Every structure is written in structure tokens, then in C-alpha cells.
């Protein structure tokens, strides 16, 4: 049983069986307030899946990209939940979950054959007039989305130009499906692969300005 936790946009928690059956998926769309809801969402996801915490075997953590303050809440929660049960954390890039959902949907609706080699960009709001985007093309033999490029930032006004030159269709996402995050983790585990970074995908350095000489007060 895999618990998936992502707070890179809203807050999302899901439980998925190792073979991909979705047992529960709960979320809060609030782009702030991750710390407020995270505990309740985990409880709800377990309750709806009729599971006790001890039945969780892995915790999938959405590693971003996403606005830092919220993103950290889910990663911290994933790590301590796993620590509490003595089970591993499986890091997953948050955009992988969106890409997986899109690709599975295409496969189910028959559009997969035509679109399988189409490059597309998962695009999420990175705040400060920037978007985070990741380019994907199809599923690999392990059933995981193929990342053409790693996640990056682009100014809002430049994004369409960047995607056009990459020949990528734009797919905006305003939520991260935690069930798909957990499913990606399940497929990575089955394939014995590591698909996500160990640390948060911040994409930005902290805002800091080096102090200049003390301001003069007399003049």
C-alpha cells in the first residue's frame, strides 16, 4: 500500500495498491494552508482506504517544483510518516504525476497511439510571474512518463515561445493527482528505479541580498 503526498500546488493525499488500484484520494485546493490540512488529509485518505497506518509500505513524496513554503510541508510529512512506520520514502517529481494522468487518459480513450510520441509540457504556476514546466513524451516500458527535459522555470510571457521552439503542446495543471504520484512510485518500485530527487525541487535560490555597508544615519 502506497501513501502519496503532494503539497506543491494544493494539498493532495492518496492511497494506491501496488498494482495501481486507487483506494482513496483526497485533496484541498487551497494554494496556502498546507500545514493546516495535511494531517487531516492523511487521516481521511487512510480512513477512506479502510487502512491503518501500519499497512502502508511506502510513502511517495511529491518533490515539486512548487512554491517552497507549501512544498516543504508535504515532503516533511512524507518523511516523518515513513519514519514513523519504518518504511521507505519514494521521491517523485510532482509533474510526473500530471504527465502520468494525461498519458493514461489518452491510452484509455484511444488517443494514445496518435499522441504517444507527441511532446507535451506540464505547466504549473510558480508564482512571481513565472511558470514551472517539464517536457514529456510518452510512456516507457515501465509505464512511467518519459521526461524529455527536467523541470525548469520560464517567465509567464516567454513560456509559449519556449514551448513552441521545443515543439511541445502546453498542458496546464492546477492540481497534482496524488493517486498518480503514488502510482508512479509503484511503477518505479516495480522497475527498481529511482525517478525523483532526494531533495525538494526548488528551482530558485532563496531570496537574499548580501548586506551592504551599514547605512549612514547622520546624512
Amino acid at each position, binding site marked *: 500500500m502506497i501513501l502519496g*503526498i503532494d*503539497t506543491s500546488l494544493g494539498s493532495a493525499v492518496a492511497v494506491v495498491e501496488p498494482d495501481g488500484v486507487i483506494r482513496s484520494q483526497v485533496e484541498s485546493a487551497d494554494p496556502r*494552508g*498546507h*500545514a*493546516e490540512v*495535511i*494531517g*487531516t488529509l*492523511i*487521516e481521511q485518505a*487512510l480512513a477512506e482506504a479502510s487502512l*491503518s*497506518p501500519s499497512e*502502508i509500505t511506502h510513502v511517495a513524496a511529491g518533490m515539486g517544483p512548487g512554491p*517552497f*513554503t507549501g512544498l*516543504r*510541508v*508535504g*515532503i*516533511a*510529512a*512524507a*518523511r*516523518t*510518516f*515513513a*519514519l*514513523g*512506520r519504518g518504511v521507505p520514502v519514494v521521491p517523485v517529481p510532482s509533474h510526473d504525476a500530471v504527465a502520468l494522468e494525461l498519458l493514461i487518459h489518452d491510452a484509455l480513450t484511444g488517443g494514445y497511439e496518435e499522441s504517444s510520441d507527441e511532446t507535451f509540457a506540464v505547466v504549473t504556476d510558480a508564482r512571481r510571474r513565472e511558470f514551472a514546466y517539464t517536457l514529456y513524451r510518452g510512456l516507457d516500458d515501465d509505464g512511467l512518463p518519459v521526461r524529455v527535459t527536467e523541470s525548469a522555470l520560464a517567465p509567464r510571457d516567454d513560456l509559449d515561445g519556449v514551448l513552441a521552439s521545443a515543439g511541445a503542446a502546453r498542458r496546464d495543471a492546477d492540481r497534482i493527482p496524488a493517486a498518480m504520484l503514488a502510482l508512479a512510485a509503484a511503477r518505479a518500485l516495480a522497475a527498481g528505479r529511482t525517478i525523483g530527487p532526494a*531533495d*525538494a525541487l*526548488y528551482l530558485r535560490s*532563496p*531570496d*537574499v*541580498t*548580501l*548586506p551592504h555597508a*551599514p547605512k*549612514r*544615519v*547622520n546624512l
Partner: protein
Amino acid sequence: MNRAEPLVLGIETSCDETGIGIVRGRTLLSNTIASSMDEHARYGGVVPEVAARAHLEALQPSIEAALAESGVTLADLDAVAVTSGPGLAGALMVGVGAAKALSVSLEKPLYAVNHLVGHIAADILDADAPPLEYPTVALLVSGGHTSLLLVRDLTTDVELLGETMDDAAGEAFDKVARLLGLPYPGGPEIDRAAASGDPKAIAFPRGLSRASDMAKHRYDFSFSGLKTAVARWVEQREAQGETVPVADVAASFREAVVDVLVTKALAACRDHGVPRLLLGGGVIANRRLRDVAIERAAAEGVTVRIPPLSLCTDNGAMIAALTSELIMSGRAPSTLEFGADSTLPVTEIQVAESA
């Protein structure tokens, strides 16, 4: 849950220290601290985003280290405790998210508590000290806060008498150190420089200490005017081509800070008829502050208590200690319905207590 001697793990992430503490009843088992102070040094002060990133990295290893040191497992715990506020919002959220998930994962109760009251609770872990008596006045001084409290009961009745209107005392040390070309953190540097200086060399102002301030700000502090006065004094010497007597400036500045802290704390003791003063917070590491407080308190018949210095700086043990007291006094756990509250008032000792 063992209410007689609860085993509690406390998580503290309100500023730049990732603190994990484990206590059993009133016995300290581990006070594990990972500090990101070095990462802030080049910026001359705590950078919130840098601190929050460091918390995320340090949390799990710190929990593991605290468990190892204590010789207990997570399954042994009676409760998980976390700082809900006050502090830096983004930093607090890391601890809150971690504590909630740990509590749900372990199916153990969670207590969300007040950081400032935690500073007072640190005193309980001092095995060599006699029991804490009430009421007591508490002076908490650090880089993040400067507060004067009246503690009638640790778990039920803490009143804010006064606090800083601008910079925390520790911040003032950092800023004046920079002014004098000394590195961060400023406290120990100012101390070192002041050692050979004359504390009476320069009469720097005591903030909010005029008779006209006493009605509204009797127990409040202000250090930004002092910082400006130091800056002006230094500039004037430089403008006249004189060398700045760093030792005298440092000693006189430190004396101004210490004087106003101790004067107001003892005024609170006198006004409220409380012959007890508890000191807490990282700036208590300043030897001059401790010495002056003890000396002047003795002259007024006030007993001073100072927790071990390792428990004065921000730490998780004090959060676990406060929670242990809450549990022993029969308090119910918090619900999961709380967040990080960067301005949590000191009167809210526990947050979101379940009905």
C-alpha cells in the same frame, strides 16, 4: 497514554535551530539541535527561506539522532509535541507538517504548543534546581524575541507584561556588531570586544525608559533607537578622523541593553510582588546580562533562575517538557486543526486542544 511520566518527542522549528527533544516526565533524554546559523552568517541575520530549507533537511536526521541518544523508539512515545508559534511562518510550517504526519503515522496524540512558554518550561528539565515556584516573572531574550511575562501557572496562566516594539535584543547585538565591523552572530563578538572596554564610557540611551514612557510602555522594550545612537556616535568619530574605541562602544552598548532588560524585569517583580525572576532565551548566554541580573536581583531580594544554557537557546526539549507538563496536568491533545501561527499570543499555551 502514560500520564504519570509521559515520554514525549518535541519538534521545534520556529527560527534557525531544528530542535528535537525527548523527555520522560521531567527528565531530559535528548536535546538534539541542528543549527543553520553558519548559513546565515554571510547575510548578517537569519534569512527565513534559508532557515526553512535547512529545517527540511535536518528534521529526519535530527529525529533519528535524538532517538538513538535516548535509547527509545518512536513506538515507545506517549505523545508528539510541536511548536505552533510564534516564529517564522515558513520555518514553523516544516515542523507542523512533520509533527502531524508523525502523530498520524504512530497513532499517538499530538500537542501543539507555544514557543515562548516552552522557554519557561526548559527550566523544569534542570535536574539540579528546586521545583519552579509560582508566580514568577520571566524575561525571555533572544534574536527573535524580547518578552517579559508573568507566569502564574506554566500550563494554564501566562500573561504578557511587555515585549519589544521593534528589534529583539539579540537582533540589536547583531546589528551593532555589523556596525563595528564584527561578524555574525553579534552577541559573542560584542562580548569579546566589550571585555576590555568601559561600560560607562558612552551614555547610550535606554529605550522606553523615560517617565513619559512609563504609563503605556512600562514593561516594553525598544532597541532600534539605541542601535541608531551607536551608529551616530561611531560616524561622528569617524568623520572627525578619530579611531573608534570599539571596546568602549561595545561595552557601553551592551550595558545599555542589559540595564534596560534588568531594570524592567525587576520593576515587574516589584510591581507584582513577585520575588522570583526566570531568565530564558539565547541572549541569556551573555555573561554580563546574567551577572547584572543576579547582582541587582539579590539587592532587591529577588531569586534568579537560569536554565542550563543548552536549554536557553531554541530547542525541542523545552517543547517536549511543556507538553509533558500539559499531559501530567490532564490536558487533552490538540486536534489536527491548527497551523503555524507566527504571532501566537503567549496566553495560548496550547493550541487547538480537543474538546
